[in-house]
């Protein structure tokens, strides 16, 4: 390995540009999508008729237990003839995949709410919708937010799987630079450091948030 500052300086702008335009975009958009979808799954699994809930549970289980690269390749194969962009496929696959994990986090948060809260809502003859909106979700979120944050960090570190459908994210840019100059060490070391620099402080923040929000 012979580190060259010239190569490092040449590749860094390319990495940062791919990082901002794809890696960060996917992380933010898909995290929000996953957080919303996850809550929908958690509510549907509780409220839907048993058969429907069982089918949805099984589908979520299959999504959770199969790899993202396979999911990317499968969805891409079905839309390749249309004018859907690979990036859009990526946004959807990451959002749906991580929504299955976030649904579990919400479930734990909802189950941590004491039964008295549900009973009080019934006693006040609140509608089902209002019970969820005004009583359950605000309390469940408190217990769930740090865990959602940790899944978002996990998603962030999984974004290089987008190589599977040739979306130009940061590691693809690193590999391309390495392939054209035969110096692989600078691009990959820098890409790794960028991941570390972004994910470690966020992880520490989530740990702090977890301690602050912990009520019981």
């Amino acid at each position, binding site marked *: *390995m012979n580190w060259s500052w010239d190569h490092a300086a040449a590749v860094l702008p390319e990495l940062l540009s791919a990082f901002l335009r794809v890696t960060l975009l996917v992380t933010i958009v898909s995290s929000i999508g996953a957080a919303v979808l996850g809550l929908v799954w958690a509510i549907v699994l509780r409220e839907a008729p048993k058969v429907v809930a069982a089918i949805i549970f099984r589908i979520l*289980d*299959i999504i*959770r*237990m*199969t*790899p*993202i*690269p*396979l999911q990317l*390749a*499968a969805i891409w*194969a*079905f839309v390749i003839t249309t004018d859907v962009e690979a990036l859009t496929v990526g946004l959807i696959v990451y959002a749906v995949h991580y929504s299955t994990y976030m649904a579990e986090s919400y479930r734990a948060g909802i189950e941590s709410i004491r039964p008295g809260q549900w009973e009080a809502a019934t006693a006040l003859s609140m509608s089902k919708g209002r019970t969820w909106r005004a009583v359950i979700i605000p309390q469940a979120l408190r217990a769930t937010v740090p865990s959602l944050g940790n899944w978002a960090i996990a998603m962030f*570190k*999984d974004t*290089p*799987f987008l*190589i*599977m459908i040739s979306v130009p994210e940061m*590691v693809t840019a*690193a*590999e391309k630079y*390495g392939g054209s100059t035969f110096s*692989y*060490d600078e691009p*990959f*070391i820098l*890409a*790794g*450091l960028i*991941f*570390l620099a972004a*994910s*470690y402080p966020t*992880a520490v923040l989530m740990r702090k948030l977890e301690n602050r929000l912990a009520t019981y």
Partner: protein
Amino acid sequence: MDAFLDDLSTAAPRFWDGLVVTLQLGLGGAAVAFVIAVALGLLTLSPNSWLRAPGRMVVEFFRGTSLVVQLFFFFFVLPQIGLELDPIPVGIAALGLNYGAYGAEVVRGSLAAVPKAQWEATTALSMGSVQRMARIIWPQAWALMLPGLNNLLVMLVKGTALASFIFLHDVTFVADDLRRTMGKLFSFGIGFAIYYALNQLLSSGMRILELRAQRRLGLKPESRKATKRAEAVAGVG
């Protein structure tokens, strides 16, 4: 139906070859990850900060820098310093180090969750540190860490799908390759089924280990039969 079976018998050998690669990476990676998780977990729990600090740094480094980056680093950079490795050992090393670092947190957390009185009792009985870990602390922590390790095992098996990035022909590669000749619904359907079945199998194996660990600690009754007997004696059920 006959056409489907015909397709299946054509595709089966290809998927079998893919499964062998996926299993090599998954089981090899899991074995390496387990050893690393235990070693780093014990290190990060050490009272000596000269041991703890480097342990923490290694854990945070491998957790923070993304599996694919690590894989590419091993695959592209190590040969340049004269370390030629086959793609399979490279994949096993990357998976083992990455998930080993995640596992270290599970091991550390579980060991730390064993009640303080248990640690104190071993001191009162003047047990050595090896005996204390092997006979008292580890068996209790083992039951606590299995659910976490189970989650990581599923993630590791999913992580093996990066094999095609280093030119290996695993299940994901085969599914993507066969879509041209056998149809996408068929090839991807089989791909999904293989991963799902494999992860369900591994997960239920881990559940069995967990139940056994709990039973050894007296937390769960011996068997369903024993539960029935106990209930009969107690006059319930």
